[in-house]
């Protein structure tokens, strides 16, 4: 892997609050745009494509948040679906409980807030629950060398499934159904923007440099006074939080949740998105998530011709070959912005040189 980027330390590197006015404006506008074009998208686009667009968004959130753990911190989590499940179930239970609660409905009617305002409440609680679960899982395994995390996260996914299966309140094996359909374009893509923004800020703050230190050389980082366990756990919990959000959006898109949905294969799909896009590249994850979501549908057509499932065979083979020949994935740890001409780049990012650094 490439050398640690030399990140010029600026005084304005506090997480979330320190971005330039120009950037804040751009992010804010993008966030707003998601809501503004939402009704147009919903009306104007064929429902089949609309569904794919929604799944693209959900997968982007999953891939970018996993990238924080697998890419930037260099840990290997293969239980992202488990956190997604926690978020999905909590969010669905919250919106269904509030939807059935007369006091809440009265409050909505009287205060004039939109009826689907219940979704962000569910999403936030789901995200927090997932982050809590992430903390619990991360604490014991992240103290040790990275390999254990892989198997513990895998096991955690299994535990979550078993717990859901045995909890009658969330439907047990038959799952939750009749979840309201609330995941419209606006909510999904504003969550996407928020995720990308937060991960971006996280990575380009001093916390982010801590994470890179963990990835490149844990022992050297420790020697430099970095609390590596704390840094890892923090990244892990944050990744889990956004996985939980994605889970909540997923629940309110599909309208049914079963424990079997969140199996190891789903975690694996997210891992391959991160690896394909490039571990350590946010825009790479975005592109790979879109690519694989669309590819899944494209391969469905091939599948109806051959009537054999070759998707997972292809995915796993791609993963092995990528690791052997191009472990950096499509983008390595560069961002899509790095591919633009320098003049355009400066204009776009304002502080392009702040994230520049040594290329391979």
């Amino acid at each position: 892997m490439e050398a640690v980027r030399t990140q010029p330390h600026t005084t304005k590197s506090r997480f979330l609050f320190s971005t330039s006015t120009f950037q804040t404006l751009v992010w804010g506008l993008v966030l707003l745009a998601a809501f503004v074009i939402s009704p147009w998208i919903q009306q104007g686009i064929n429902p089949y494509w609309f569904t794919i667009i929604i799944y693209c968004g959900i997968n982007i959130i999953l891939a970018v948040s996993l990238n924080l753990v697998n890419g930037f911190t260099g840990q290997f989590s293969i239980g992202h679906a488990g956190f997604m499940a926690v978020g999905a179930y909590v969010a669905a239970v919250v919106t269904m409980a509030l939807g059935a609660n007369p006091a809440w409905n009265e409050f909505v009617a009287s205060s004039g807030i939109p009826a689907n305002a219940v979704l962000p409440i569910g999403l936030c609680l789901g995200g927090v629950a997932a982050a809590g679960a992430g903390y619990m899982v991360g604490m014991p395994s992240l103290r040790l060398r990275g390999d254990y995390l892989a198997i513990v996260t895998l096991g955690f996914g299994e535990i979550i499934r078993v717990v859901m299966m045995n909890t009658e309140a969330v439907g047990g094996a038959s799952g939750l159904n009749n979840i309201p359909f609330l995941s419209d374009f606006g909510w999904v893509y504003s969550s996407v923007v928020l995720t990308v923004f937060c991960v971006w800020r996280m990575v380009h703050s001093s916390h982010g440099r801590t994470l890179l230190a963990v990835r490149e050389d844990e022992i050297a980082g420790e020697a430099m006074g970095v609390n590596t366990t704390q840094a890892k756990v923090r990244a892990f919990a944050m990744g889990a939080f956004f996985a939980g959000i994605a889970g909540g959006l997923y629940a309110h898109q599909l309208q049914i949740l079963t424990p079997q949905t969140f199996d190891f294969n789903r975690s694996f799909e997210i891992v391959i998105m991160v690896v394909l896009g490039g571990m350590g590249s946010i825009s790479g994850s975005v592109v790979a998530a879109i690519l694989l979501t669309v590819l899944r549908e494209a391969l469905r057509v091939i599948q109806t011709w051959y009537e054999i499932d070759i998707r997972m065979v292809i995915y796993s083979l791609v993963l092995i070959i990528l690791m052997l020949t191009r472990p950096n994935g499509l983008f390595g740890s560069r961002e899509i912005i790095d591919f633009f001409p320098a003049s355009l780049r400066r204009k776009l990012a304002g502080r392009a040189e702040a994230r520049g650094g040594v290329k391979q």
Partner: protein
Amino acid sequence: MDQFLQHVINALSLGSIYALIALGYTMVFGVLQLINFAHGEIYMLGAFTGMYTIRWLRLEEHPGIGSLIIALIAAMAASATAGFVIERLAYRPLRKSPRINLLITAVGVSLFLQYTGQLIFGSDPQFFPTGILELEGYNWSYGDLVIEPMQIVALVLALILMVVLQYIIFRTRLGRAMRAVSFNHDLASLMGIPTNQIISATFMLGSALAGAAGVLVGLIYPKIDPLMGTMPGLKAFVAAVLGGIGNVTGAVLGAFTLGLAEEFLVGYWVPTYRDALAFGILILILLFKPSGLLGVHRAEKV
């Protein structure tokens, strides 16, 4: 009382299955410090090779120990080859890469084998021809207590293999080389140890053990399918960590502990949490004694 003893017998038989898989796991980990996710799939390959050997050679028509040995040898040879090929093609080129790349490849190999297995063998479970040993009806019973001959075979075999491996590791040149490679890869090669060959040999040995386990499990639980390796593989890993990973005696001890824990959880308490138990144990052991029951704490290398 009979019921309690029966549970103990069941647990020992279950534990010996885990032990057979965990032995190979722990060997590979000991030398490469790699969680070989594909180990469970090699065990699956062993079971299928055994089944096809029995079918093609019509071994069922000549039941007996001889037929069993032929099936075992075929399965072990196929698994060892698979292990060798996987190590050579997928793991060796990555020896100098970051650990995470190696782990990702291991997961990729595991899934590749699972899904190619589904394409080749079909996803419907197959029947493992138990007819090669005429043991049905030879159960030994005392009151309500029942012991099957295959349970004894598995238990004895697990213990014998443990002793043999212990001997190989601590009393032979190969074993000494393995320990040297495990202790410090670069230093070992400076001392003139052919590290790549040693690692290949370890992989083949561990995979052959998995193949043998596949055939034995097929005989005891005659239902095999391409996904059969996943859960036992993970549980065997937990057993290996529980006993102290890289430690052969520890793997067997961990496997029996896990077998007992599962058996009593299911028999006396909440059967539905069985699959969660193994991972719960894993999290607890990592929290309180990461080196495992018999492991020694080893400082990480700078």
